[in-house]
Structure formats: C-alpha cells, structure tokens
C-alpha cells in the first residue's frame, strides 16, 4: 500500500479508535461521577480484606517459618488486594446485556454507527479502570497500614498491566456471552451468578491456586478463569512469580477462544432479532 493510499485508511481507523476511546472515557467518567457512592461501596472491600487479614494472621501464627507455598503473610494479603480489586472492578455486564436484549433496546443500538459489542467493551474497560484503581487505592492504603507495603516484583509491572488488560478482555467476552443467553432463556441471572462464583473460587480470588489440592490446582490452572484473576496477581506477588511469557501466551489463547465464542453467540442471537417499524 502506498503512503498516498494509506492516509484515508489510517484516518478511518484512527476515527474508529477515537470513537471507542470516547465511549471508554464516558464509562470512566460515569464511575467517577458517583465516586462518593463507589468509595462507600469500597468499604465492603476493606471489610473483606480486614477479615481475610485476621484469618490469615491466625493461620500464619501457627505456621513454622511463616511461609506458605512461597507466600509470606504480607504477600498473601497483597495477593488478595489485587484479586479482590479485579473482582470489585467488574461492572455487572451480563445483567446489563440481558436487560438490553429483553427490553429490545439492543435493536435500536444495532442501527447506530458503532459496533454493539465494541461499544460495551469500551464502556466496560472505562468503568473497570476507574473502579479498579479506586478499589486498589482504598484497599491498598488500609492493608499498608495493617501488614505493611507490598513487596511486588516491580520488574513485572508492565507485563502485569498487559495481563490485566488481557484478563479484562477475556472476562468481557465470557460475561458478554452469558448476558447474550437472554436470546434463548428467560432468566440469565443464574448463569451470570454461576460464572461469577466459579470465577471467584476457581479463578483464585479467595485463595491462591497453590492452596488447592493438587488435582483441582491443575484443573483450575488450565481454565480461563485463573487467567483472569490468579495469573495477573501472581506476576507481581509471591516469592517465585509466574513466568510472564507462558501467562501472556495462555491469555492470548483464551482470549481468542472466548472472543470466537462471543462472536458466535452474538451472531446466532442477532438472527433472532425482529425489528418492526411503526
């Protein structure tokens, strides 16, 4: 392609990206607009971390050497800060999509000059960024006061941020697919809740996978759920952090799989939309 031909094409791509970036900014601004409420809600996060801190203190007090599976007490708590913040950051995407499908507002969106999926993706990322940063800041401050500052592997910081982005994208595709089930079933709530709870347990939100029994650890390690929570957190925390290369590769693999699944579900669902004029 010659530079002359590339110009308008590049401008079109830039315009598209700018469009979705604007949506992300709106998502972020929405989250920030209700900062008082979000801050109050983040107290629940602080409470959860406080209770976990107390629980793990008791466990570590009875552990000779003070190290469990390569985690000191401080590492364990900071692991939980990251994993809880990731969960806290997630908007209720499946419920939102479910409502739009059932109410029919999706049909209006389809005719607008943007992709329905990308619109939600951009909005979700914007909201998640604002909520995640706020949650991590509040929880981090409290935990710093109780167990001290983190001993993160800062050399992995850039790859951690990349892993977070990929994790959010995989989660988006999966949660979006769950919401789209509203095309076929009356109530998607149980599916969304099941997905959320499996994410919390097998994704490693409440316990690092190292605490699981061997078989379950291996199974959970292969699932996309652990790529959304456990893997990003373990890039930063623990005596022996996960190697960045395999984590990113596994995330890319799951991202591709989840993306294809989401597209397939979306296309199949859209075929069921009937638009009547009037």
């Amino acid at each position, binding site marked *: 392609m010659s530079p002359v031909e590339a110009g308008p094409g590049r401008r079109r791509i830039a315009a598209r990206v700018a469009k979705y970036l604007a949506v992300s900014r709106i998502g972020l601004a929405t989250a920030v607009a209700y900062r008082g*409420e979000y801050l*109050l*809600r983040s*107290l*629940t996060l602080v*409470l*959860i971390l406080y*209770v976990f801190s*107390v*629980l793990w203190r*008791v*466990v570590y007090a*009875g552990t000779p050497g003070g190290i469990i599976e390569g985690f000191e007490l401080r590492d364990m708590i900071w692991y939980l800060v990251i994993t809880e913040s990731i969960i806290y950051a997630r908007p209720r995407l499946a419920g939102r999509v479910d409502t739009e499908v059932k109410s029919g507002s999706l049909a209006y969106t389809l005719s607008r000059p943007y992709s329905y999926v990308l619109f939600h993706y951009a909005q979700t990322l914007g909201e998640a960024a604002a909520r995640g940063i706020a949650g991590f800041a509040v929880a981090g401050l409290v935990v710093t006061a109780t167990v001290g500052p983190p001993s993160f592997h800062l050399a992995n910081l850039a790859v951690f941020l990349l892993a977070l982005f990929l994790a959010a994208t995989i989660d988006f595709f999966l949660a979006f697919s769950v919401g789209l089930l509203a095309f076929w079933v*009356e*109530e998607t*709530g*149980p599916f969304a*809740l*099941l997905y959320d*709870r499996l994410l*919390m*347990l097998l994704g490693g939100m*409440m*316990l690092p996978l190292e*605490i*699981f*029994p061997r078989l*379950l650890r291996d199974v959970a390690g292969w699932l996309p759920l652990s790529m959304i929570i456990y893997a990003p957190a373990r890039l930063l925390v623990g005596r022996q952090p996960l190697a960045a290369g395999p984590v990113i590769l596994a995330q890319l693999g799951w991202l591709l799989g989840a993306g294809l699944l989401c597209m397939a579900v979306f296309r199949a669902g859209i075929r069921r939309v009937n638009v009547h004029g009037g």
Partner: protein
Amino acid sequence: MEGRTAPGRLGAHLRLLSAYLRANVAMAMEYRAAFFAQVFGMVVNDSLWLAYWALFFNRFPVLKGWERQDVLMLWAIVATGFGLAEVLFGAWRTLAGVIVEGQLDYYLVLPKSPLWHVLMSRAAPTGWGDLGFGLAVFALWGTPTAPRLVLFALGALTSGCLLLGSGIVFQSLAFYAGHAEVLAQQIENAVIHFSTYPGTVFGGSVRVILFTLIPAGFINHMPVELMRRANTGFLVVALLAAAAWLAAGQVLFSAGLRRYESGNLIGPRM
C-alpha cells in the same frame, strides 16, 4: 385492637404474617422462572462459601479450635436464620429506601404496626434459597438427632432475630440521616460478613464491637457454644440480645415516624 390480651394480639399478628406469606408465595409463583432462578442463584452463592471453607480446612484442618464441621454448622445456622428473615420479613433490607422515598403512607393507615406491615409486604425469593440451603446443610452434615435439631432451630431463630433486629435499626437511620441506604447496606453487609467467619479468630476491640455495636459475635459463636457445647447460658444471653435488637429497632422506627415526610406518591398497588 384495644382491650385484647397479649396472646390475642400475638395470635392476630401471626395470622397476618401467615396471610402475607401466602400472598407473597402466590405472587412469586406468577413469575416461576424468575423465582426459581433466584433460589438457585442463592444456593450457588452459598455453596461457593462452603467450597471455600472445604478447601481452606483441607489445607489447615484446625483454625483456633474450629474445624470444618463447625463452619458447616455456622453456615447452616446463618443461612437458615437469614433465609427465614428474608422469607417472612423480606422488606427489612430495603426499609431505608422506602423511608427515603416517602413510600410509608400506605402502611400508616393500616391496622396493626406499620413496621410489621412494611416488613412483611414482600418476600425476597433468594431467602427460600438460603433457607433450603441451611436446612440441607444441617440435614446432611449436622447429625440431626432430636436434641441437636432443637439446638439448631433455636440457633437459627435467634440468628434470624439478631439479623432482623439489627437490620431494622440500621435501616431506620434513614429517618435521621437522609439518604442512608448505602450506609445501612454497608453496615448490614458487615454484620452478615462477620457472622459467617469463625468467631474465635476475632479478638480485642473487634470482639467487643461484634458483641455490642453489631450482633455478629452472638451468631458466629453459635456452632461451638450451642451445637458443640450445648451452652444454655450462651443461648439465653443470645436470646436476650436478639430481643434487645428487635426492641431497639421498633423504638427507633416508631420515633423516626415522627420525622417522616410523605413522598405524596400516587400509584396502583396490585
């Protein structure tokens, strides 16, 4: 009605409770799919926590004197008590919203206590999930002999009353502090959260708070004190605490009614 004896008044209130329960169940059955979806969702949610504790105790078998069996009983008691409160008095967790939006008018003109009416006006479908889950856990892992069944029932009822009473207290803050919905919700989340962890892990000033400012301490000591040791002294104190929280809720709500401002909302009630 004036002149009625206390048992008579209680009987009338219980008949009203039964009528509300039947109406709420009939209403839920009109939306069966949504109802069963919510029940299933709550069972999944509670099961997650049991799975967490199973993994935890698999790796750390004893936690300050608590074993896996104790946590199972804790969840059986709390889920049953919470489920009962949700099924019978399902509006207790949204009371602040009703107050703030000025939607109490309808209940003020009805005979019997407005608090009683507003609490029973809806049943949370998820409560059936909690109730079923708690009973199932007890049936499966609680060694349900007759004496243990009595202890379990007393523990669950007391826990339900403690949660309900404290819920009314915190939700009634909306009369005094304006938009207190989120605040009340956060405090209630704290009560429920602390109630579902082994009581012995909390010490010092937090332990004092759990037995005074919020009633979680009574609940999270039930499995060991009641189910394991059959400590009747503890049960009596817990029952008194439950009565005190319920009374405080009633007093705070009644006093708050004097500050209530109607929303002048006009709408159909079906």
